């Protein structure tokens, strides 16, 4: 089935919009929309404005709750636009997939140290639940590409997760 959703990049980054996205990726991919799908930021007007204020001037930024935003995109909202889609967590990525979003490749750009996590890459720290969520995404055919900024080396995350299983 052809979906109306086309994205330049779907990225997990716990900082949402910041320099690596607004300068690094937006500079390379030339989006006209940065769509943030995040329940927490969408619910809080102050947080929503803060996230959007970090967006480059020539790009529009929007923050939606994960489910509403996914349905909006799936029903053709922003069809024809050049979109960078940003998520805060792997749990959000799973929800995206569960809602039928055509997710073939996922960029992992920044999940920083937190309680119970360990380093898989300098900018990818995962706790056991996140490892499971990423494994599940890989099993469902999502290519997991860790890369902080364009031009830096990218890593296939799935084998790194596998090595942790033993």
């Amino acid at each position: 089935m052809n979906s109306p959703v086309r994205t330049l990049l779907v990225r997990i980054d716990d900082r949402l919009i910041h320099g690596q996205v607004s300068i690094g990726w937006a500079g390379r991919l030339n989006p006209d929309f940065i769509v943030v799908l995040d329940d927490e930021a969408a619910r809080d007007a102050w947080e929503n404005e803060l996230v959007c204020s970090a967006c480059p001037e020539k790009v529009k930024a929007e923050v939606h709750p994960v489910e509403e935003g996914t349905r909006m995109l799936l029903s053709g909202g922003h069809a024809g636009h050049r979109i960078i889609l940003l998520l805060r967590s792997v749990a959000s990525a799973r929800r995206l997939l569960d809602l039928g979003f055509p997710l073939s490749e996922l960029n992992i750009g920044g999940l920083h140290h937190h309680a119970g996590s360990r380093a898989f890459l300098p900018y990818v720290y995962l706790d056991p639940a996140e490892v499971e969520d990423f494994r599940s995404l890989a099993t469902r055919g999502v290519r997991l590409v860790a890369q902080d900024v364009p031009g830096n080396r990218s890593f296939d995350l799935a084998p790194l997760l596998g090595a942790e299983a033993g």
Partner: protein
Amino acid sequence: MNPEGRPVPGILVAHGRLAAELKLTAESIGGPAPDLLCLSNVDRRPEELSEDIGAAIDERGPGTVVLVDLAGGSCCTAALRAARTRPKTVIVAGINLALLLDFLSKREDYASAELVTHMTERGHSGLKVVKAGE
């Protein structure tokens, strides 16, 4: 001495080693500034950086000036989150050496608001083409 009776307190927050290196460089020119705290985004989650900035503001009191490297960057966003519940905090983005030297040398003479005006003007005027290519 400024009207608050103490030098305007400051915190530097920047990517990588920039804050620490900028402070070291400024100190080598203008003398030591032991109370100027440097924070980096490296090895800190965004909320952790916000908490650390918030704690440093609380230690220094209202009117603390947070100097960050890049408007819209993660350090700036973290500072804005910390300042959400600390409304007297000032945040200035786009720090450079001229601006920092001005901040450090004038913060005993000016109150926070005047100091910010003065140092941002210095920051702007310090950015110039000193010789155009021929």
